């Protein structure tokens, strides 16, 4: 119903953007999240960590947002969610590293696991391990 997003920048060899989500991600706000990431990408973000520690719930539209976010961070325009979008296999089998997930609560982690979306992302215990991993990968 409502979700707050907070954006922070971590300076380093490759700057990392942390997008923290708080509340519930569902059909009412997933498009806002996609738009936020589109803006971040346009502003130069190339490494993104999505901090899920304070996200209490994620509906299936959240999966659509996550998939669109990966596309955006690959430099592809996300397709219109009403009109359809490319299947994940178009992105290749391996988890990409432009977008990392950090600290999902058990309920959100269950949705990621049940739907197999956890295969798409490297999921870290918290934002700090995600930052370390993203910095090392850079």
């Amino acid at each position, binding site marked *: 119903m409502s979700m707050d997003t907070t954006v922070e920048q971590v300076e380093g060899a490759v700057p990392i953007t942390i997008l923290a989500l708080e509340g519930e991600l569902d*059909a009412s706000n997933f498009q806002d999240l996609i738009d936020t990431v589109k803006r971040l990408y346009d502003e130069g973000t190339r490494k993104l960590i999505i901090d899920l520690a304070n996200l209490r719930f994620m*509906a299936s539209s959240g999966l659509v947002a996550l998939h669109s976010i990966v596309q955006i961070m690959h430099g592809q325009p996300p397709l219109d969610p009403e009109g359809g979008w490319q299947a994940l296999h178009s992105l290749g089998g391996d988890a990409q590293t432009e977008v990392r997930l950090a600290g999902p609560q058990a309920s959100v982690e269950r949705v990621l696991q049940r*739907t197999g979306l956890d295969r798409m992302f490297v999921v870290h215990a918290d934002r700090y391990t995600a930052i370390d991993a993203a910095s090392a990968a850079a």
Partner: protein
Amino acid sequence: MRVAVGSAADLDLDAVVAPFRAVDHELCLRIEDADGYPIASTSLDPPALDAVTRAIPGGALAGGRIRVWGSAAGGGLGTAVAESLAAALAAAPITDLAIAAQHAANARRIEEELANGRRLQRAFVALKPPDVPGYDIASHYEAAREVGGDFFDLFRQRHRGHPLSVVIADVTGKGIAAALLMAFVRPLLRAAIEHTTGPAAALERTNKILVEERRSFLFITALAGRLDVRTGHLCFANAGHELPLIVRADGSPPTWLEGAGPLVGAFPRLDVPEISADLAPGDLALFYTDGVTDARSPSGERFDEWRLLETLEDTRGGTAHEVVSALADKVCAFQEPAPPADDITIVAIRRLPAA
């Protein structure tokens, strides 16, 4: 009240309504074409008035009508405003008539096509469950929009013993794109069930077709199950779908049947596990889509799993129909007065208690 008008252009609705704005009133206005089809409607506050004047290209309206409803302190204001509007419209010259008429005609055509789509889609979905001796089966299907992306299927397989096949799926997304994919996937899945050794293989084959032929532009959560109606043995595979539930006749709490793999159409392979459960006499298996648990109340609360479990407890011992309709009613009442935001599908299979 309804006032017929001859024409309209460069209409200053704001000026027309201004004299009445000081008085406490609630009014709503709707502008219709000559056939009574709405071109625009709004409440009479300044931003909405602005939207109305923009919604009528060139301010044109010929042979059309303005309808005004509402209540007003002291009464009679609705009529007064309507008459003022009518007078202003009648005095205005006609411009761009064709555009306004075209817009209305297009909107009406799309609406008619969607209504046809909805009828066709409802015919796709098995509304009347198959008759299976020893079992009691019920379902509920309601698309949130004219057409939806949920579907389910219940049919007796050709294999030995004619097991009952149950399929429930949700194309992630709504509207026409989801409905088209649903129409494409449903027979694909049914054929795969008839021509493979079990539910996991059927989902794997469907996934392979979607992925290799790149037909899939949306995600699909799907659960396929096979019930041996002689023994009550249920075997199913779950590709990213909501976990099914079993309500035992022995009075134990309803349990989720765990075990799932990724969404259909998303990855080259599913590798989804096959899960088994046995339905004893009196046990009920429930399958549903996320339109149930993700339904929102006007205050933003989610229906959530616990209300689902509570409903199952409340209807324990009831027929499949009683369980399904109680749950559907509760989800609907929970969202009121808003219409359902997502498609809702519920299927219950109950093994009849021993006579």
